[in-house]
């Protein structure tokens, strides 16, 4: 251990909800994206799932809202070091979408892509079974554009760069294909509890 002279850290209560190397951002919700925030109206938003599925399909805003409402309540973790406790995202479970397109047995991974062209890759297992959502509300309000509104992907058990803002679709694949940040040196999976920040971690 390389102790830094004179560094004690902020007085802290031990918090088991905080993954290693993270701090509690409390009321702050930093915005991190390398893109210009798009002006995307709900009427123009669409969400598509294709690739290795029985029936590819595109939903518009109304069709997506007709699916059973669901919400994620819990914590989120950003690779830049902050975590936020007890947030609430309202939307629809990704399972509800996937049930309609029926993934083929050969599908192992997904590439999530945004209306801006941003991409990120995920193992299929990380987005099924109640672990991922398409969200359009934050704290009961419409999701702000700079945080991915009108709708974004939420995969809260992974670092938040996986939760693609301005989500446009998922493509199911039988192999892993690095997305935008993954191609820029970030880890392929991004599990905060194992500190999978950069490739090689």
């Amino acid at each position, binding site marked *: *251990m*390389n*102790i*830094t*002279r*004179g*560094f*004690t*850290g*902020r007085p*802290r209560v031990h918090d088991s909800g905080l993954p*290693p*190397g993270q*701090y509690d951002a409390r009321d*702050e919700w*930093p*915005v*991190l*994206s*390398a*893109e*210009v*925030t*798009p002006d995307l109206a709900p009427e123009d938003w669409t969400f*598509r799932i*294709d*690739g290795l599925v029985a029936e*590819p399909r*595109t939903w518009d805003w109304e069709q997506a809202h007709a699916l059973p409402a669901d919400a994620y309540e819990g914590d989120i973790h950003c690779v*830049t*070091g*902050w975590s936020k406790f007890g947030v609430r995202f309202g939307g629809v479970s990704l399972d509800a979408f996937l049930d309609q397109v029926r993934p083929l047995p050969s599908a192992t991974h997904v590439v999530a*892509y*945004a*209306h*801006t*062209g*941003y*991409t990120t890759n995920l193992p299929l297992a990380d987005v099924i079974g109640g672990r991922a959502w398409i969200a359009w509300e934050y704290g009961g309000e419409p999701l702000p554009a*700079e945080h991915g509104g009108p709708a974004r992907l939420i995969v809260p058990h992974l670092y938040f760069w996986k939760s693609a803002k301005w989500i*446009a*679709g998922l*493509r199911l694949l039988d192999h892993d294909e690095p997305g*935008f*940040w993954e*191609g*820029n*040196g970030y880890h392929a999976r991004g599990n905060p509890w194992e500190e999978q920040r*950069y*490739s*090689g*971690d």
Partner: protein
Amino acid sequence: MTQPGTPVTRFAVPGRIGVSRQAASVWRTATLTEIRRETPRVSTFRFAVPGWPGHLPGQHLMVRLTAGDGYTAQRHYSIASAPDDSGHVELTLDHVRDGEVSGWFHTVARPGDRIEMRGPLSGFFAWPGDRPALLLGAGSGVVPLMSMVRHHRARNLTLPLRLLVSARGPEDLIYADEYGPETTPVFTRTAPEGTAVGRMTAAHVAPLLVEQPPGGWEAYVCGSNSFAEHASRLLVAAGQPVERIRIERFG
């Protein structure tokens, strides 16, 4: 992305360079060699980093401080210095109120102290000096842009480079003595006699886009989120293509 169904991506901005995965995953011990005050709230910290693999202007690194009880704090900092082969890097830190890491740097750190760093990280915001660059920064957001300006100067590059830097007033302008004709400061609260006060506007940005260099600008925007939103919208409104705007947000 050629399969049917995929929208045409506008954000097809590739990383400017291949990132060394090896370098990004290694923690190195860096020794603080010098502290220089830039403004009342901002200082530059110079480190000797044995084994530093080199960087490109615009890249950042991760700093880790460790307390006696094993607690660690990690933060990202842009690299302020131009690439050189001296094995040193410089960081320029704003003293954030109640800041855990910046607070340690500004109140405890002294030459000889050892900390850990990993990097350089992310090739996305990097500028190898290959395209005309239009740089917009505010506050400590000027740090990675200064690395580009310094690189441009050190290499005697002739391709066009322009910097618009926003600060509250002259006393808050980081690197004030180092700017040349490539730079236009914008003061938001107080300004010297005869200089306008106010935030960056279309009037600052539009003329630069009217007189585009051949091939157009590669735009780099860095600062707080609110500045990044404001400045990137000014660029889009002035006609800069979104896929040629790179943004680094400090949070």
